[in-house]
């Protein structure tokens, strides 16, 4: 490591620090000293450093040294507010940091108080913190929002000197980040001299984060300074080269289990990452099936009971586990014992995510991390290879910060009124100083204020029920104290799907269900709706028998079925990143690069080239062929499953209109299959319709709009927006609403609002959100533009090798949305048939 040896640098370190470093035999690192020097001079900074580079200490050094120079505040002095605020994306991380930070503070005997404040902090301690704040407060974005919505915020934050943001790259891309940026804008007003310090892993666009950290003024872009730590040792990443046959499709990677197990056996502690919770359940089950040495292997994902997760984390920290199967809940930087191997099962879907996960192994930056990628099918082999190339090239595909959302703004406006009456113009100036809201039009801001007051409807009937009102001086203030109480109960930007607690019960002799046992975690309500008592499913590493729903709990018992239904969790699937998709296309198009691929995959591609064609990088390959009594079209856009599903829906509508009698479609991350009664190959050849017309960009117009408005996706987005914006409460003082009640009404509210006031501000927010959240529509548009005039059609007399994976998905997936009434009709036909039978008797 490079060492700063200039006298100027070291003179920044007060004596206790210099002694402490010396006693440990450590040298402050160059980036730590640079950050200290520049932050002490009052500069806001972004530190980009790999894991293990001493990021946390670097972030706190300016505060620790400054507080040491200041000394303890003598008793009886005037009220002193907090000196440094640390914001972390995770509660657990804040607690972890407190432990790590207290170590040097105690060892050096520094006159500094450090405390956490999270949702778990007892009321008495919060009260005390307000009266007698610590020097350094460690907290989360939600707690900051609560603090600034309090009338005492100006006093509490008046002495604030530093705000440290940990894992900034992951904080800023979400709505939490938007709320946080507004909170930061408020802090800047309360303590104009404060400096920000952002800590981040490597990102694609450091300029975005640097802009986020400082106040913006109209027409000028300002940026925080940048400090970069040198990268650590290059990770050693390999793709599992299995002796077994890699399957054509599927996501379980069952074929590789013996090899994965062998790798676990050869290492001290392994972290196994998968992309979805159901994959985690399956992988865990498969490993235990062959765990002959009964190695301690645990499971960790977001739906599991908190107590159970904490137990796993504890065991992990104490190095009592040999392996943990996890989803993204373990992506972020909590320190876990000695992980010496990361195994990624399934393709990583994004290069940045892979880099982050690989960083979880071996938290010392001087030693290389070790990782094994296990592709679950043949396309994933190529995707893994592409991600691996990207990791070496340092390519990044982190999502952009995005424009500040309006629902979050509405929440912030109400919070502002809860703290003190506000002037609309002054608040607008403050809000637009936050980078995500810098381009917010004044008119839109006014509409949001109206929305907060009375719902902002064109039909003005709620004036007398307004939540905030203008005073005689023209300031907005809350109408009554209940409004502030409601605000505090419902604050935050994380809206959960309606979930039911899963509780284990014992079955009585006559099939009666006994009293409650252990709680296993939560499962989405819509999944349970498909189950009948007696059905089995995999959860929390066990096969469970569904017994029924009682109150708000799903009752289950131990089952011994070998063929469980698998929980299908919403939102668990990451889309294939644009960057990786392009890399895979490039790889297919360039046989020179096939050398890296396993022989069986090479053979597969070569065969495809011989019998059909390989998709070119800037071309869309379409294959048509008959099979059974149907005619198939397979397209290879490589734009991710969600984009393909939308495309499939739009193509089916068009083929229907052209009279080609389409029957259905199915999508994977790489390709899309549509089948019909008519010969599609023939239809395209005689141009009825032509492929150029079929894939014309105008399909993203009315058809898409019509479909989107009806879609489940938009309703879910609306529900999120409505809850965050405060239109729908998740919790009401005195009575907690269950998730179920919120969903039902949100869909109905959406329908009523859409039919009567389609340009309402919340629908505008919903559409913007859906468009940004579903980058897929954008991707689809880009793809259709790119391939215009570059569609290659191959008419085949049978299925091609490349088409096999998507064809194998047929039957596993069915179309949602419009097919609903079809299912009803099917059920009703049963009755008609029965009735006819009765009549005939």
């Amino acid at each position, binding site marked *: 490591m490079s060492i700063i040896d200039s006298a100027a640098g070291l003179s920044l370190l007060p004596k206790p620090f210099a002694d402490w470093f010396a006693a440990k035999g450590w040298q402050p690192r160059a980036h730590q000293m640079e950050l200290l020097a520049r932050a002490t001079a009052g500069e806001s900074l972004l530190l980009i450093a790999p894991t293990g580079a001493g990021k946390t200490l670097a972030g706190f050094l300016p505060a620790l040294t400054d507080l040491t120079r200041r000394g303890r505040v003598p008793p009886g002095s005037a009220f002193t507010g907090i000196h440094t605020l640390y914001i972390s994306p995770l509660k657990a991380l804040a607690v972890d940091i407190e432990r790590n930070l207290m170590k040097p503070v105690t060892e050096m005997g520094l006159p500094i108080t450090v405390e956490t404040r999270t949702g778990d902090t007892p009321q008495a301690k919060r009260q005390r913190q307000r009266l007698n704040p610590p020097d350094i407060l460690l907290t989360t974005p939600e707690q900051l929002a609560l603090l600034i919505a309090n009338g005492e915020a100006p006093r509490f934050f008046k002495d604030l000197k530093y705000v440290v943001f940990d894992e900034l790259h992951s904080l800023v891309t979400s709505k939490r980040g938007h709320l946080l940026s507004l909170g930061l804008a408020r802090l800047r007003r309360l303590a104009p001299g404060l400096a920000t310090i952002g800590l981040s892993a490597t990102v694609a666009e450091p300029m975005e984060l640097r802009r986020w950290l400082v106040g913006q003024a109209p027409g000028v872009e300002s940026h925080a300074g940048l400090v970069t730590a040198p990268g650590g040792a290059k990770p050693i990443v390999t793709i599992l080269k299995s002796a077994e046959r890699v399957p054509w499709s599927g996501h379980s990677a069952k074929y590789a289990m013996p090899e994965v197990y062998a790798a676990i056996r050869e290492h001290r502690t392994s972290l196994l990452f998968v992309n979805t919770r159901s994959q985690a359940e399956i992988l865990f089950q498969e490993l235990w099936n062959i765990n002959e040495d009964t190695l301690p292997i645990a499971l960790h994902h977001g739906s599991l009971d908190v107590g159970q997760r904490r137990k796993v984390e504890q065991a992990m920290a104490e190095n009592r586990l040999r392996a943990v199967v996890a989803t993204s809940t373990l992506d972020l930087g909590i320190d876990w014992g000695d992980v010496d191997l990361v195994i990624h099962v399934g393709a990583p879907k994004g290069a940045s995510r892979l880099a982050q996960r690989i960083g979880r192994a071996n938290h010392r930056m001087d030693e290389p991390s070790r990782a094994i990628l296990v592709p679950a099918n043949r396309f994933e082999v190529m995707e893994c290879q592409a991600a691996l190339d990207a990791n070496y090239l340092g390519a990044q595909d982190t999502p952009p910060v995005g424009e500040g959302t309006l629902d979050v703004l509405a929440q912030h406006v109400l919070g502002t009124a809860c703290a003190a009456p506000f002037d609309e113009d002054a608040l607008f100036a403050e809000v637009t100083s936050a980078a995500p809201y810098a381009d917010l039009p004044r008119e839109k801001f006014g509409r949001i204020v109206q929305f907060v007051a009375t719902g902002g*409807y064109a039909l003005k*009937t709620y004036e007398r029920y307004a*939540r905030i009102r203008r005073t005689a001086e023209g300031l907005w203030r809350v109408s009554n104290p209940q409004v502030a109480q409601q605000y505090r109960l419902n604050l935050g930007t994380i809206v959960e799907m309606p979930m039911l607690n899963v509780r284990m019960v014992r079955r009585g002799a006559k099939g009666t269900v006994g009293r409650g046992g252990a709680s296993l975690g939560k499962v989405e309500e819509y999944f349970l*709706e498909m189950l009948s008592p007696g059905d089995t499913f995999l959860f929390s590493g066990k096969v469970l028998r569904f017994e029924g729903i009682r109150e708000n709990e799903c009752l289950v018992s131990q089952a011994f079925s070998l063929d469980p239904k698998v929980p299908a969790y919403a939102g668990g699937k990451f889309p294939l990143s644009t960057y990786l998709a392009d890399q895979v296309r490039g790889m297919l198009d360039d046989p020179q690069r096939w050398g890296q691929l396993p022989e069986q995959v090479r053979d597969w591609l070569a065969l495809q080239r011989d019998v059909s064609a390989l998709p070119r990088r800037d071309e869309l390959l379409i294959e048509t062929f008959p099979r059974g009594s149907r005619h198939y079209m397979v397209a290879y856009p490589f734009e991710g499953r969600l984009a393909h599903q939308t495309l499939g829906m739009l193509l089916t509508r068009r083929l229907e209109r052209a009279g080609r009698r389409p029957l259905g479609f199915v999508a994977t991350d790489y390709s899309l299959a549509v089948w019909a009664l008519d010969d599609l190959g023939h239809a395209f050849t005689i141009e009825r319709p032509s492929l150029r017309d079929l894939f014309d960009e105008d399909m993203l117009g009315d058809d898409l709009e019509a479909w989107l408005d009806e879609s489940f996706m938009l309703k879910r987005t609306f529900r999120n927006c409505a809850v965050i914006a405060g239109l729908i409460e998740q919790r009401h003082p005195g009575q907690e609403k269950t998730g179920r009640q919120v969903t039902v*009404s949100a869909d109905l509210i959406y329908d009523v609002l*859409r039919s009567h006031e389609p340009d309402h501000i919340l629908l505008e927010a919903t559409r913007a959100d859906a468009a940004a959240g579903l980058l897929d529509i954008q991707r689809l548009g880009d793809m259709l533009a790119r391939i215009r005039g570059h569609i290659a059609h191959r008419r085949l007399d049978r299925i091609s090798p490349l088409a096999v994976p998507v064809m194998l998905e047929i039957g596993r997936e069915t179309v949602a949305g419009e097919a609903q009434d079809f*299912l*009803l*009709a099917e059920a009703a036909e049963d009755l008609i048939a029965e009735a006819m039978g009765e009549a005939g008797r």
Partner: protein
Amino acid sequence: MHRLALASMEIEDFGAVCARTVVAGVEAVCDPLGALYLPETRLLVVSDLHLEKGAAFARRGMMLPPYDTLATLKVLEAVIARHDPAIVVSLGDNFHDRVGSAHLPEVFRAKIADLARGREWIWINGNHDPDGTVGLPGRSADELHHAGLTFRHEPSLLSPLGEIAGHLHPAATVVRREKAVRRPCFATDGRRLLMPAFGIMTGGLDLRHRAMTGLFEKQSLVAHMLGRDRIYSVRFANLRG
């Protein structure tokens, strides 16, 4: 919301989209707009209108859209125009809260007066609005006995035969190919019939919910489900394929 779209559609053949049923020997027609029509006595039943639900929430600080009353009345207008009944029975929870009918904006009041003109109109009291309605045409009652049927808001456990009730907002879930579709429904076993909630912003309660226990003979229970443009009749045992 398909009901609102359906209400504005021209339908030539009601018979094809409605479902016929018999309750305690009385012929009835389940309309996909959510109303029950008895042709013999020209009586139309709707239940759980929950008018002014948005305003009721606004009074408590949740600014739900103020359009639900208008939308519900539009559907009601369509179904009345379709059957031209002599008697309209609104089966309780006509308003979402006690003060709803007193605070009803004048324009909606006039609309209801239009709909009631030339017909008999009976407001059955519900648990949300037990005090009856204020300043609206028609009369209020707790129960109505007519043509061998009993109309009340909450189903009674004692006398199922010939009972038409609301209150529970019945909905049924069809499961096919690992997909679940849930829709409001008329639920009847031939002895009693539960009405779907008519209000546009009302939710539903599954037929398998505990609150439905003991109300029906499961063997003969049929859910007449409100589809996009017609009624789908599914036997209870067939809901899950």
